[in-house]
């Protein structure tokens, strides 16, 4: 008992010394305000989790450089769930009950988000997830917000662009995971937009060839093709079999990782998304410059989403006080917020409040992202 208490005191003292060193740099002082974060830094979701972690750590630096939470530094404890919902759940328990964090950011994947939401909801810990979640969960858990668009909004953005180029007949290539979820929202919406889905072809996640599915889409003679996937394969296949119609891709394939893997096929593809680091919107410029300077690479949507989530929670803490209860913090979080990625309003029914007008439409030209002037009015 005496030994363990000595050790914990020593550990605390060391931590304080360490923190005061940072605090001097950041002009903040006092006990840090602890925020937990869970991302998929390894495993299948690492393409999301790694950029999100970068965004979080950059935001932490930025928040502390600007005075932290009423002068106290913020500390974001980032954990990896290895793309596994069970791991996410045990990390969440540790962060909430062990580390006593004030709020939780993440996780990166939908299954993990639903799992972790069970704990944060039951214990009234505010959570801002990096996924689209879904209406069933959004109705129940009113303090589990999210900074990426719900799939219904992604489907709407695809259809808005199709409408703008007067595509009445659309062929769809989608995968059996993410693609299925977006497809479920897309089908009922298509009628409303006067878009006829002339071919809907599915392929398994990780498929190495989707040529035959693409050929069926081609044979249906669509005016445009939607690709909803998290891989470069269908993009290469539609170009290989010489589909010349415009290709519109859901945000899932917007990352550099997939675009690089498309090779010469990364051309004439339009993606409804939020951040084009090569040509940011005016309010995104500061974030993009800071990110480039720190990481020597160009940020995209997931970096910005994590950055926004951290800043929203910091704003709520500054409003409600660093020691506010979860419920107070949750109320404080539910104000309109203009982020780098989008405009949010967590008091909206869908727990994100991102309007369709926040989307920008990028176009891949010769493997490079360009920003098109097209926007959807609210």
């Amino acid at each position, binding site marked *: 008992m005496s030994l363990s208490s000595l050790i914990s005191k020593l550990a605390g003292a060391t931590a304080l010394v360490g923190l005061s060193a940072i605090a001097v740099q950041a002009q903040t002082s006092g006990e840090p305000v602890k925020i937990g974060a869970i991302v998929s830094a390894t495993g299948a979701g690492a393409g999301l989790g790694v950029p999100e972690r970068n965004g979080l750590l950059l935001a932490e630096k930025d928040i502390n450089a600007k005075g932290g939470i009423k002068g106290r530094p913020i500390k974001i404890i980032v954990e990896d769930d290895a793309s596994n919902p069970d791991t996410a759940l045990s990390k969440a328990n540790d962060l909430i009950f062990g580390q006593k964090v004030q709020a939780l950011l993440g996780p990166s994947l939908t299954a993990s988000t639903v799992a972790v939401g069970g704990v944060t909801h039951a214990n009234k810990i505010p959570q801002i997830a990096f996924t689209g979640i879904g209406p069933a969960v959004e109705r129940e858990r009113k303090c589990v917000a999210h900074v990426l668009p719900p799939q219904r909004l992604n489907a709407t953005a695809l259809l808005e662009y199709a409408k703008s180029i007067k595509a009445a007949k659309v062929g769809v290539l989608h995968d059996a995971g993410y693609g299925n979820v977006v497809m479920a929202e897309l089908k009922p919406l298509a009628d409303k937009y006067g878009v006829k889905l002339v071919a809907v*072809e599915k*392929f398994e996640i990780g498929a190495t*060839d989707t*040529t*035959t*599915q693409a050929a069926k889409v081609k044979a249906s003679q669509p005016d445009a093709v939607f690709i909803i996937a998290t891989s470069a394969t269908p993009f*290469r296949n539609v170009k290989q*079999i*010489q589909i010349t119609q415009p290709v519109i891709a859901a945000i899932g394939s917007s990352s550099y990782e997939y675009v690089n893997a498309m090779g010469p096929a990364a051309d004439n593809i339009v993606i409804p998304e939020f951040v084009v680091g090569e040509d940011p919107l005016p309010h995104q410029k500061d974030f993009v410059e800071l990110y480039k300077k720190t990481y020597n690479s160009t940020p995209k949507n997931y970096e910005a989403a994590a950055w926004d989530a951290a800043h929203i929670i910091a704003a709520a803490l500054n409003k409600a006080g660093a020691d506010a209860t979860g419920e107070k913090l949750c109320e404080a979080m539910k104000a309109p917020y203009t982020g780098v990625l989008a405009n949010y309003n967590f008091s909206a029914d869908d727990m994100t409040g991102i309007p369709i007008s926040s989307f920008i439409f990028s176009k891949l030209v010769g493997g490079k992202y360009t920003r098109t002037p097209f926007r959807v009015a609210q």
Partner: protein
Amino acid sequence: MTLSLVLQALFAGVTNGIVYALVGMGLSAIFKGSRVINAMQGEFAVIGAMMTVLLMTKSGWPYAAAIAGGAVAGALVGAFIEVAFVRFMARKNASEDSFLLLTIGLALTLSASVLFFIGRDGHLLPPLGGEGVLIVLDAVIQFHALWLIAIGIGATLALRAFYHRTTVGLSMMAASIDADGAATTGINVGHMRTFTFVLGGLLGALGGILVTPLIGVDYQLGLNLTLKGFAAAVLGGLTNPLGAAVGGLTLGLVESLAIIGISSSYKDVVAFSVLIVIMILMPQGILGRAGRRGG
């Protein structure tokens, strides 16, 4: 269903079938020569393709030399795995399932190593014959796919000739059929097993290099290829590399015809139902016992 759609499905089916066949042939060559079910056959493809990519982009080798380098890398890794692991386990009379566990472990380790050292990104190689395509009745096939089919068929015939006409090939067959008998006639059974792994590594690497211009290579590709290659090999008769070629083509064609004939949603259901029926009717594989004697 139009004629051009059927033709497009046939093109895709044959192209994919040859890829499955190359992986399956390596798998069954190794099984034939060592009774090891090699769950890391797809990783040979990743090694070959990644090495070719690295030699081209980092070391600036010309394409042909880089391809040779990639193929040699696959062969060397094959030899290393036999010398470093299989040989010791065989000496202690390890069972087939121990070997299976070994190769599963190696597959995961190699995939993780590629992720760690090379990264998550997918890579492409330039297509043989350029970006050109052949168009028949509106159905499109890349020149590269034609090359892949030609080289795949060539490799199949060469493998058959190797097993039937060369001393090394005949010795490898003898060592696999009756190790003690082969040893009494002066065949070094251990060496033959090393050659078997070299051959498996070479075939796997060749498949990986050939397929990369079409589908790209990343750290996750190996397992996908192993699964399809394994299905191809079992379908054709596991101990017969030529059977894997037949099995691969069957699998590729059934898959793509299922998409146009029924629905892409039920592609795997249809394809694997057909495979189950084939295995029930022909439990020895499509080529059956007749094929098993030769191969």
